[in-house]
């Protein structure tokens, strides 16, 4: 049996074999993570709620099931955590907002229920930007997660706790949610893997919304194969969410190791690599090197044009904030004092757009979608930096901070295309950088295959923060 200091560094891929062979006890594994949370979370602030007793109880049940020969699959006995906007029956779900501080759902979100049914152990609920918007706001009344690579820096958001908890070994995997980059951003800033699946692949039933046409649910993990394990469980049609697809869910692990020989990767350099003082040269250098690695693995990297990308940064906030205002307007009028300053100001902004603004933004979205569809007839994937900059300092964070820099993630929320962020290096000051790979709708297998090939050829996913 491995020591507790090593258990929190295991990937799901490594742990699941040990659990299935009964060389590792889910109870011991869960206790190791609870100990780790006890030791580190005062500093890192990733959790809002820790479910120590429930988790140990679930772990004992998992152990008994496995001992009886009833092994359910790769997540059986694996300790995970959820962004605190996934409903959990009988467990407070706050979205990091005073408005929901006492809200206890009577039903699980569909994703929560599917993870529980897979045998995963729920360690707790993770801190986030209030209502998945804004920033690390000291006025929201909830914990503000710290980047485990350097606690003076932000971990990205809005799934901040989801990124921190995985990176720091406070859970083996987490779920985040993503409206403009809230899974890939924390993954990039925390040096882990974050997957935004295709719009409609994963149910959003029981997940507190931000913007209905842009919201996605997905996993954050240490490795690409772990991402496939998580997606396998949460993907698929949900009668409770009419936006989910009825298409069959493939085996996401089946082709993950098949390599990328002959894969065609397009890079819209005019947008992601443009000469812009708001884009970090360190980030571009790391991603440029990553593109070379992909070529070395047999892929061809070609330059492509997606002209409407230039307008995505103008259209996305109109869509997101207008829809968010629609959802929150009653509370903005009746209980404005219960919002944190950052979220309230952004939501209020959503009320100031006109209907003409919203429709024009939707039209731009249509053109962007069409341009990507045309490009994806000639290439298999789109590659770019995940974020235009490395993490910023905590004491410099503002509600508008991200809005003033180019968003490299939100175009794929607008189109609904799947996109993943994998670690691809570090800045000279030791902060992680992410490589983003996006693909055709419902072609997660190709994205996972390319991300896995890159991961296997590089050491970045083996680096752990010294916290």
């Amino acid at each position, binding site marked *: 049996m491995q020591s507790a200091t090593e258990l929190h560094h295991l990937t799901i891929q490594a742990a699941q074999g040990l659990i299935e062979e009964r060389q590792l006890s889910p109870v011991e594994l869960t206790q190791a993570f609870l100990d780790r949370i006890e030791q580190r979370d005062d500093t890192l602030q990733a959790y809002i709620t820790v479910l120590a007793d429930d988790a140990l109880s679930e772990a004992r049940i998992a152990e008994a099931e496995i001992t009886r020969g009833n092994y359910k699959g790769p997540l059986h006995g694996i300790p995970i955590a959820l962004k605190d906007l996934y409903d959990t029956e009988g467990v407070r779900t706050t979205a990091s907002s005073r408005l929901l501080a006492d809200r206890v759902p009577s039903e699980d979100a569909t994703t929560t229920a599917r993870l529980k049914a897979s045998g995963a152990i729920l360690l707790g609920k993770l801190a986030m930007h209030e209502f998945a918007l804004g920033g690390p706001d000291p006025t929201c009344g909830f914990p503000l997660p710290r980047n485990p690579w350097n606690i003076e820096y932000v971990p990205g958001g809005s799934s901040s706790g989801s990124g921190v908890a995985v990176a720091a070994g406070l859970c083996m995997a987490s779920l985040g949610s993503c409206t403009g980059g809230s899974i890939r951003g924390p993954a990039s800033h925390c040096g882990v893997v974050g997957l935004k699946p295709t719009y409609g692949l994963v149910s959003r039933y029981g997940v507190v919304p931000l913007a209905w046409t842009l919201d996605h649910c997905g996993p954050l993990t240490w490795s690409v194969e772990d991402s496939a394990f998580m997606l396998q469980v949460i993907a698929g049609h949900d009668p409770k969410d009419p936006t989910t697809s009825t298409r069959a869910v493939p085996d996401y692990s089946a082709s993950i190791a098949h390599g990328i020989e002959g894969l065609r990767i397009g890079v819209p350099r005019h947008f992601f690599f443009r000469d812009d003082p708001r884009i970090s040269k360190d980030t571009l250098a790391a991603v440029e090197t990553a593109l070379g690695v992909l070529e070395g693995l047999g892929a061809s990297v070609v330059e492509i044009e997606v002209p409407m990308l230039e307008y995505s940064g*103008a*259209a996305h906030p109109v869509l997101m904030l207008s829809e968010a205002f629609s959802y929150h307007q009653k509370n903005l009028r009746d209980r404005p004092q219960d919002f944190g300053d950052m979220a309230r100001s952004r939501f*209020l902004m959503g009320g100031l757009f006109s209907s003409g603004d919203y429709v*024009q933004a939707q*039209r731009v979205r249509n053109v962007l979608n069409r341009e990507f569809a045309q490009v994806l007839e000639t290439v298999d994937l789109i590659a770019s930096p995940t974020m235009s900059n490395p993490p910023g300092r905590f004491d410099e964070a503002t509600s508008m901070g991200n809005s003033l820099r180019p968003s490299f993630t939100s175009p794929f929320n607008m189109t609904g295309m799947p996109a993943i962020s994998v670690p691809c290096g570090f800045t000279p000051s030791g902060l992680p950088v992410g490589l983003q790979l996006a693909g055709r709708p419902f072609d997660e297998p190709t994205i996972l295959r390319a991300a896995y090939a890159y991961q296997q050829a590089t050491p970045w996913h083996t680096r752990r923060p010294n916290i």
Partner: protein
Amino acid sequence: MAGSDAISIDDFRLLVARTRLTLSDEQIEVLRPMYDHYARLTATLHGLDLGAEDLAVTFAPAVAPGHAVEG
């Protein structure tokens, strides 16, 4: 929302009043530069000629609440 010049405080108060929100002077002062930032962005959207074929609002009668989307 359109235009690239900073909005006057009186015009901005009128705009906020249209939303039926009650904001303090301090909140209005915080919000106004944010509005100006987004006004510049939306002006670029309205400057685009997308052509009549780029329909944004679609209606698919087969897709009703509780009715699954294909694909």
